[in-house]
């Protein structure tokens, strides 16, 4: 990482820690939502941004994770166990969803995963005996650890932030290991990757499974955050929203999902002053952004910094190893 990157990350981390002291409960709820959705977006960024596999199913995995935790904790299972179960279950289902990706790519794969999201929504809505159907599940409790309850907004936010930090660190480690390089190889040139001994089948499935697992863990925090879940929250809209976060933030940049989730969670709120038009304004902003900077906000930052350093004649030194694409 460059010095600029380290400075920016440290500053952002400090802000994330002290911010709740300056916010009302709704503000804390919003930044908790940011932390939760960032986890899901990190997973999608791994599948899509690094490994190059289009997935429109991340919202469905958040849903599976959320329902798993809601159902298990209401049946008396401890939260930690339910949390792990959500991750493992989504990992397994994600692995299976990866199989179509071995046969189809790009927009065909998008359709396969889109169909999966619809399927999950239908199961959540129709299997009333398990999921409560359209009534959803009410009164999901926030966990307590060693006698410390996270029922209040502030402790729960720190719980979400801590989980995000741990999962982000684990993902960062994986991406800088040879696995990360293999995932990028899969994205850049699968045929060449195969001829170099890279088991593209195993890495493709792994990219789907780990991405889905992170989606499930995100859902496992989502349920106790909102405390009421219903199938509509995990329909296509959420999958599109997560896709938007990854792309707007900068697909294939490690911090892309953090930035993208911030935009997707906060921008609609700030734009409430535009009243009924806020979604329109938001949509136009996204369209303009995509037209002029398809590599996302972090892609734009990198472009500006590269242009600046070129004028300093120091370009090659700054491009060294790190979390770039």
């Amino acid at each position: 990482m460059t010095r600029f990157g380290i400075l920016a990350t440290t500053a952002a981390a400090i802000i994330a820690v002290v911010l709740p002291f300056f916010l009302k409960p709704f503000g804390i709820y919003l930044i908790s939502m940011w932390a939760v959705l960032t986890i899901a977006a990190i997973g999608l960024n791994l599948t899509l941004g690094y490994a190059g596999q289009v997935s429109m199913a991340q919202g469905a995995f958040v849903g599976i994770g959320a329902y798993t935790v809601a159902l298990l904790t209401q049946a008396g299972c401890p939260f930690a166990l339910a949390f792990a179960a959500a991750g493992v279950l989504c990992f397994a289902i994600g692995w299976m969803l990866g199989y179509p990706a071995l046969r189809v790519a790009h927009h065909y794969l998008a359709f396969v995963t889109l169909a999966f999201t619809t399927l999950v929504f239908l199961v959540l809505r129709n299997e009333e005996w398990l999921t409560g159907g359209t009534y959803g599940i009410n009164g999901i409790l926030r966990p307590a650890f060693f006698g410390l309850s996270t029922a209040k907004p502030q402790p729960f936010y720190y719980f979400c932030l801590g989980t995000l930090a741990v999962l982000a660190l684990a993902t960062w480690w994986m991406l800088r290991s040879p696995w990360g390089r293999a995932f990028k190889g899969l994205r850049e040139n699968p045929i060449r990757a195969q001829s170099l001994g890279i088991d593209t089948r195993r890495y493709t499935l792994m990219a789907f499974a780990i991405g889905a697992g992170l989606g499930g863990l995100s859902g496992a925090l989502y349920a106790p955050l909102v405390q009421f879940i219903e199938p509509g929250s995990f329909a296509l809209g959420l999958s599109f929203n997560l896709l938007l976060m990854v792309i707007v933030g900068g697909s294939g940049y490690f911090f892309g999902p953090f930035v993208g989730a911030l935009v997707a969670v906060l921008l609609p709120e700030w734009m409430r002053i535009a009243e009924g038009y806020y979604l329109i304004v938001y949509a136009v902003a996204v369209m303009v952004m995509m037209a002029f900077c398809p590599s996302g906000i972090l892609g734009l930052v990198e472009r500006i910094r590269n242009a600046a350093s070129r004028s300093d004649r120091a370009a090659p030194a700054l491009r060294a190893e790190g979390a770039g694409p």
Partner: protein
Amino acid sequence: MSAVLEVSHLRKSFGGITAVDDVSFEVRDGEILGIIGPNSSGKSTLFNCVLGQLRPSGGEVRVGGRTTTGMRPCDLNRLGVSRTFQLLQVFPQLSVRDNLILAGQEHQGSMVARLIGRADAGLGEAVDRMIAFFNLAHLAAEPAGALSYGQQKLLDAAMAFMAGPRLVLLDEPAGGVNLTMLSQLRERLAAYHAERNATFVVIEHQMEFVMALCTRVLVLAEGRIIAEGAPHEIRRNPVVIDAYLGH
């Protein structure tokens, strides 16, 4: 000398067209075998069948005595068979250095060991040597996509050698490379061959390149082998001259 690669009665047809028609040959340990032939004579299809990129319609491929017909390219690569491509195949957004680490990392330990182990999979020094060997040191941190065509060809070859393969199949290494870069490439290939006693199979159009590099030449036309011999014999062979110029 034992055979590193044995191909027997290999056939590949696409619908009604037979691209490779009952081809048999063997590649001996340490030789540089050239395969030449006019366009659409089946050279690349032959390569792709040998390397598992295409499933042959019939026949058998053996590497070091072991049957590998229909084996996946990644498994074949782990047996020590490597290749370069006719059309450039590098990872354009990865640095030259990362391209080379990626080319060798899957031969280092298990999948789990690679996850928890070092970021460069312990290949740092091997990569440095390979970069120096192919004169790419000044470009090590550049993204591969930013290199010139000739430099990418060098990188492509270097990647094929990263895992220390016993057999390397080079698909038109000289295609589209300018003369200066071409002599550099040829010299590097010859040097690698001398140093490691590696076995090469080279598909090539550029006759001078083949004549200078190869120890033995096969001529393919319309999917069949029509001639075989030392380079200077092939050059004078009337069947070969006819196949290239006769139609």
